[in-house]
C-alpha cells in the first residue's frame, strides 16, 4: 500500500510504449533526473514528452532524445538543447511549440477538469495558425485545449510518506502542475519525511495527486549532475 518505491524499475513500470509523459523541470532545474536516468535504461519507445525543454545536450531529456525514444515533444523552448534541431531536421522527432504560459495553463486545465480556455497569448502570430479565434468583451483570444498525460515524472524537495509535497525555490516550476494532469504521477524527492512534518499550510501538492515516490539518486550541482553520496 505504500507509495514509496525502492526500485527505479518498479517506479517506472507504469511507463509503456507510446505513452505521453509529462516531465518536470525548467531545463535541468527541478527535472526528475533520477527518473529520467531510469528511462534511459528502460526499453521503451514512441514516447510523447511534454516538458518545457528537452534538457541540455546529452543531459536529462537530451539523453532520451539521443536514444530516439521520443517520437514527439511538446514544449516552449527547445533552443536550450541545439541537438533537438538536428533531430527535427532529420525527421526523427515531431515538435509542438507552445508559449510557456499556454503550456503551463493547459496543464493546469488538464488537471482541473477544464476542457479548454481562451488566452490572449499568441493571437495574430504564427503559433495561432489553425487555432480558433474568439472575441470576448472586445478582446481577441485563441482557444487552447487542456493537456494531460499518461504519466507525469516530477521532482520535489520533500515528500511525506502519504505523498504530500513541497518544492525548493525555482525548482518548483512545472512540477506541481504536472502532478495534477496525469493518470499516474511519480515523484523523486531529496527527502522523505513522516506525515505531520510538513505543515498543512505549506504543502504545495496534496497527497491525492501522487501515486509513487522514490528517493532521488541524482542531484543538480553547480558542477553539473552528480550521484547522491
Amino acid at each position: 500500500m505504500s507509495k514509496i518505491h525502492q526500485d527505479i524499475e518498479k517506479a517506472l513500470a507504469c511507463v509503456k510504449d507510446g505513452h505521453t509523459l509529462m516531465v518536470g523541470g525548467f531545463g535541468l532545474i527541478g527535472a526528475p533526473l533520477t527518473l529520467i536516468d531510469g528511462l534511459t535504461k528502460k526499453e521503451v519507445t514512441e514516447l510523447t514528452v511534454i516538458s518545457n525543454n528537452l534538457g541540455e545536450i546529452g543531459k536529462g531529456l537530451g539523453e532520451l532524445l539521443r536514444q530516439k525514444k521520443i517520437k514527439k515533444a511538446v514544449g516552449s523552448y527547445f533552443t536550450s538543447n541545439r541537438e533537438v534541431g538536428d533531430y527535427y531536421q532529420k525527421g526523427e522527432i515531431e515538435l509542438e511549440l507552445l508559449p510557456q504560459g499556454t503550456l503551463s495553463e493547459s496543464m493546469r486545465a488538464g488537471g482541473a477538469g477544464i476542457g479548454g480556455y481562451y488566452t490572449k497569448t499568441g493571437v495574430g502570430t504564427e503559433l495561432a495558425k489553425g487555432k480558433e479565434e474568439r472575441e470576448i468583451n472586445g478582446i481577441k483570444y485563441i482557444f487552447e485545449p487542456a493537456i494531460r498525460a499518461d504519466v507525469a515524472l516530477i521532482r520535489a524537495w520533500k515528500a511525506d510518506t502519504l505523498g504530500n509535497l513541497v518544492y525548493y525555490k525555482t525548482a518548483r516550476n512545472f512540477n506541481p502542475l504536472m502532478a495534477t494532469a496525469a493518470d499516474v504521477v511519480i515523484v523523486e524527492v531529496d527527502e522523505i519525511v513522516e506525515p505531520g512534518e510538513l505543515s498543512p499550510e505549506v504543502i504545495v501538492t496534496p497527497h491525492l495527486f501522487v501515486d509513487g515516490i522514490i528517493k532521488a539518486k541524482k542531484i543538480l550541482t553547480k558542477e553539473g549532475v552528480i550521484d547522491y553520496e
Partner: protein
Amino acid sequence: MSEKNQIQDLIAKRAAKELTGPCVVNLGIGIPTLVAKYIEDENVYFHTENGLLGVTDVEEGQIDPNLVNAGKLPVGETIGASFFNSAESFAMIRGGHVDVAILGVLQVDQSGQIANWAVPGKNIMGVGGAMDLLVGAKKVIVTTTHTSKDGKSKLLKKCHFPITSTRSVDMIITELAVFEVEEGKLNLLELMPGITIEEVRDKTEADFIDQLKERAK
C-alpha cells in the same frame, strides 16, 4: 570592457531610468538582464517567469543551482521574495499584474510590433515567455542595439520576421536614441550622448517623428 559590452551597458543604464518604484518588472534575456544592476530603488521588484518575485544578484560563493532566472542564470532572492509555479507565474503576467517588461528584439517596426522569437528559414525551436509578456505586461520597453551585426537597421517599416504579438510596445531604447510608440507611430524622444539626429536617420529604416524639440520644452 569590450565595445559591445559598453553599448549594452549604455542601453541598460538608460532603460533603468524608466523604472521608478513601486513597480514589478520582468527582464528578458540579454541586455534587459543588465538593467537590474542600475536600479537602486528598493521598490522595484523583479519577477522571473520561472517562478520568483524578488530576483536579485547572487555572489559567486552563494550560487544555488536550483535558484535561477528565466535565462537559467544563477540569481538570488530578496527579503520579501516569493516562489510560485509556472502557471501562477504566467497568470501574473497575462493577468496584468506585471507593470513593466523589458525585452530584446530581432526587429521592431514603426507601429511598435516586435519580432523576437523566430527567424524565417530556420527551425522554430523556442518561444518561451515572450508572447505572454507582450500581451500581459502593462508597459513593454524594448532594449536593443540599433542595428544588427551586418549593420542593418533593426527598426523597420514592417517586421519581416514572425511577430511576437499584435500588441505594440511602448518604448524603444537603443545606443543611438529613445523612441516611444504612440497611436501606432514612432516618436523620437531623445538622442543618446554624442549622437546626432542625422546619424539616427541614417541608421533607421522605420519612419519616425522628431519630437526632440517638443520633449525639450
